[in-house]
């Protein structure tokens, strides 16, 4: 207790004395010394007051009637709330027996009679203070013990030689230290030699410098790995306080976090993050040692299709297989030659999806890197087996090397990626070295892909509509919806360019869905007025059509917009139809029964089996523009058109010619009996509003012509 508290409240002293004059003197002396005095003139009264008022100090005359001082003292010691109150016995001078009895009964001190009254106050104050200090020390020790008990760390005090002087075993204390503490051996004898040596140095260092030292000790015992964080501080001139914390759990947790952060959970290979770190380290070394490094970038050409058609579990199994092969390859001397000799000279990683990388350090030449890539490629191309099925994976590889192809991580990885794309473009399953010319083209493509992804997500696309004309009735039979995209910087991008990109980048499904939705919105807008019977045709991509619930999706989209289902026409290519005939028949039948119209697009370019074609519930064939464009050139194309038209007629299908651009082409088609035409000669694709205006204008003209009974050839480009 701090001294301030002693001064602030007057301590209470109880004096038990049966002699009234001595009691009076004691009161006067103690009051003058700053005490509040309680008096008792017999033993019972004294005990009662001590019990009730818990004085800070008690003075007891030994000899009192009924209950003597010794008895009172012993009883006070048994009362819990006052047990540690200091008790001073007033004993006779030279009364050895009394003094002995006083201590035996638990007295704190004694004062022999006759009492020197002028000194009594000082004496009692001194004992009182000593008691408080002692009590304070006991309190603080108790707190310290609680503290130490609550700390999970082990604490020990060791001398210079490492002998344990004091030991507190922490929650997960090391058994080795327990042993030292119990048998008095030096910790140096029990700890593993390397740790003992480190401790010996640390103890000496700490004693020498007076500074704290810190280390981490890894102790392996009975196959269990324990990690301890050890801190040492000087304790006395020749002993050291050692605090040892078991950090094994933390270590394990850290390792797990590192594993999750830096390793791919599917294959166990390092992930993109750790690959980038490895490259960055390797790059630093290469720069320092003036050596070359290469990044091999692998992508599995047909993996997306396997994943889509056979499910993710098969895909995952194959990815694991690829990872194992890559690892085997880089370990096997014949695959990577001398790279296998050192651990870190070659590192494999999975960047994500079906992209894998191999980092080669200290490469001698470009040829060496491509040699390694070729060997890995051929190893990966060997058939794989999964659940009794055989798969052949064909990877493409790109290589970029420091210093030739870049001197920072990003550039090297990007260029390796681009080289890989170039390999794909060259026909897949091959290796391509990065080259400077590649970058512009590939960058453009990557940029387009990125912008297209954003445009689709944001709905930043547009549908244009190209009208179709019936050659017989001279009516507009409908419009074909064609998707248009305007790049924010490059301006309009041709569908011939961006649709293949969408297909390669896995965006085609999103794009197709957007088209379906946009067309349905347009049809709804045209409903209920003068354009109520306009039909809109949309192109279904193969991927979209292969979705198991494509029929539901389309019917739901039409229902959501509430127009007559026959106003939506679906155009599918031959390739799409022939991919899975059974499913095609089922899906088309469902759509057809719902009322939608179905046309085969680009007819003549694929390999349609006529027997299958008959099974499909289709309404129309569209002659591919390539035949139409050459129809008047005197080649085969006119015969092909004739054959298609005849075929359509024999099957009771409507036939539509696409890409009609000249009056000559139109004449030929009319002659051959083609039902409808579509092309710039009649009308180009136009935005929705413009299309509506065109249709209305055309409708008015036609009505006028009908009223004039005019039969002049009607077909002319009428454009807004």
């Amino acid at each position, binding site marked *: 207790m701090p001294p301030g508290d002693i001064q602030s409240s007057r301590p209470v002293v109880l004096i038990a004395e049966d*002699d009234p*004059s*001595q009691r009076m*003197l004691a009161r*006067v002396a103690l009051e003058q010394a700053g005490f509040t005095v309680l008096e008792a003139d017999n033993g019972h009264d004294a005990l009662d007051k001590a019990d009730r008022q818990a004085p800070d100090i008690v003075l007891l005359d030994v000899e009192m009637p009924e209950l003597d001082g010794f008895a009172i003292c012993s009883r006070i010691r048994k009362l819990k709330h006052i047990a540690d109150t200091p008790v001073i016995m007033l004993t006779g001078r030279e009364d050895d027996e009394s003094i002995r009895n006083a201590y035996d009964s638990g007295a704190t001190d004694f004062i022999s*009679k*006759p009492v*020197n009254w*002028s*000194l009594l106050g000082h004496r009692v104050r001194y004992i009182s203070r000593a008691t408080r200090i002692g009590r304070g020390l006991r309190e603080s020790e108790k707190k310290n013990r609680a503290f130490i008990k609550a700390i999970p760390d082990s604490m020990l005090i060791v001398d210079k030689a490492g002998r344990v002087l004091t030991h507190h075993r922490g929650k997960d204390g090391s058994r080795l230290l327990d042993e030292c503490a119990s048998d008095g051996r030096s910790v140096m004898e029990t700890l593993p030699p390397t740790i003992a040596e480190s401790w010996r140095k640390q103890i000496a260092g700490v004693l020498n410098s007076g500074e704290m030292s810190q280390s981490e000790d890894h102790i392996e015992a009975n196959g269990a790995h324990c990690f301890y964080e050890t801190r040492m501080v000087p304790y006395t001139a020749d002993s050291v306080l050692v605090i040892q914390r078991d950090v094994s759990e933390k270590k394990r947790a850290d390792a797990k976090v590192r594993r999750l952060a830096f390793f791919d959970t599917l294959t166990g290979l390092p992930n993109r993050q750790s690959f980038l770190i490895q490259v960055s380290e390797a790059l630093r070394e290469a720069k320092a040692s003036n050596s070359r490094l290469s990044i091999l970038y692998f992508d599995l050409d047909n993996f997306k299709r396997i994943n889509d058609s056979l499910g993710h579990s098969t895909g995952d199994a194959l990815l694991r297989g690829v990872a194992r092969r890559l690892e085997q390859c880089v370990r096997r001397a014949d695959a990577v030659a001398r790279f296998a000799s050192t651990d870190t000279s070659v590192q494999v990683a999975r960047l994500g999806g079906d992209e894998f990388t191999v980092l080669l350090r200290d490469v001698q030449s470009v040829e060496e890197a491509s040699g390694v890539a070729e060997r890995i490629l051929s190893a990966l191309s060997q058939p794989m087996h999964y659940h009794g099925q055989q798969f052949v994976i064909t990877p493409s590889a790109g290589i970029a090397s420091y210093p030739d192809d870049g001197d920072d991580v990003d550039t090297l990885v990007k260029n390796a990626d681009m080289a890989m794309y170039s390999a794909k473009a060259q026909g897949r399953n091959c290796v391509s070295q990065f080259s400077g010319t590649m970058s512009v083209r590939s960058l453009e493509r990557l940029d387009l892909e990125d912008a297209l992804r954003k445009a689709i997500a944001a709905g930043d696309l547009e549908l244009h509509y190209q009208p179709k004309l019936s050659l017989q009735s001279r009516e507009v039979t409908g419009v074909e919806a064609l998707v248009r995209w305007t790049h924010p910087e490059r301006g309009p991008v041709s569908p011939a360019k961006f649709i293949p990109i969408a297909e390669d980048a896995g965006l085609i499904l999103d794009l197709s869905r957007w088209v379906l939705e946009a067309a349905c919105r347009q049809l709804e807008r045209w409903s209920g007025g003068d354009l109520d019977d306009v039909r809109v045709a949309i192109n279904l991509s193969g991927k979209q059509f292969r979705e198991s619930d494509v029929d539901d999706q389309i019917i739901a989209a039409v229902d959501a917009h509430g127009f007559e289902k026959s106003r939506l026409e679906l155009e599918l290519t031959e390739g799409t139809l022939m991919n899975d005939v059974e499913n095609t028949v089922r899906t088309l039948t469902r759509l057809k029964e719902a009322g939608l119209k179905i046309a085969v697009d680009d007819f003549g370019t694929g390999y349609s089996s006529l027997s299958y074609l008959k099974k499909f519930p289709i309404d129309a064939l569209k002659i591919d523009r390539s035949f139409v464009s050459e129809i008047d050139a005197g080649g085969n194309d006119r015969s092909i058109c004739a054959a298609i038209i005849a075929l359509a007629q024999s099957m009771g299908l409507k036939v539509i010619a696409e890409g009609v651009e000249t009056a000559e082409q139109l004449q030929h088609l009319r002659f051959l009996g083609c039902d409808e035409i579509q092309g710039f000669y009649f009308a180009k694709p136009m935005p929705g509003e413009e299309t509506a205006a065109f249709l209305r204008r055309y409708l008015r003209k036609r009505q006028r012509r009908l009223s004039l009974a005019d039969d002049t050839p009607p077909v002319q480009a009428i454009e807004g």
Partner: protein
Amino acid sequence: MNTPVIDPVPLDAIRNLEQPGHENLLNTIIGMFLEQSVNELAGLREALQSGSADAIREAAHSLKSSSANVGAMRVSALSYDLEQAGKDRALDLCGMLIDRLALAIDEANARLSDIAGAAAA
């Protein structure tokens, strides 16, 4: 007997406590002793007559302490002897000691009365 009738040291110690509020402390204490000593002596004689060695021992113990308190060292010494005799139940010795104690008390009280009178004056 070498023991002085009155030892001035305890009296000085009491005088030291004479501070405002307790100006006549020594006189009060001496007065209390004069009365107490006479009472104790009477008590001792009674106890002797009734043959109560325990009562003698207790009274002697009390007198031993209170006389020492006012410096009446000869009274205190005789009280000690009497206390021991009481413990030993030596009643004959007790009678003898009580007689001598009476003389010592007279002697001490005369001196103490002088001291008190001087202090009062």
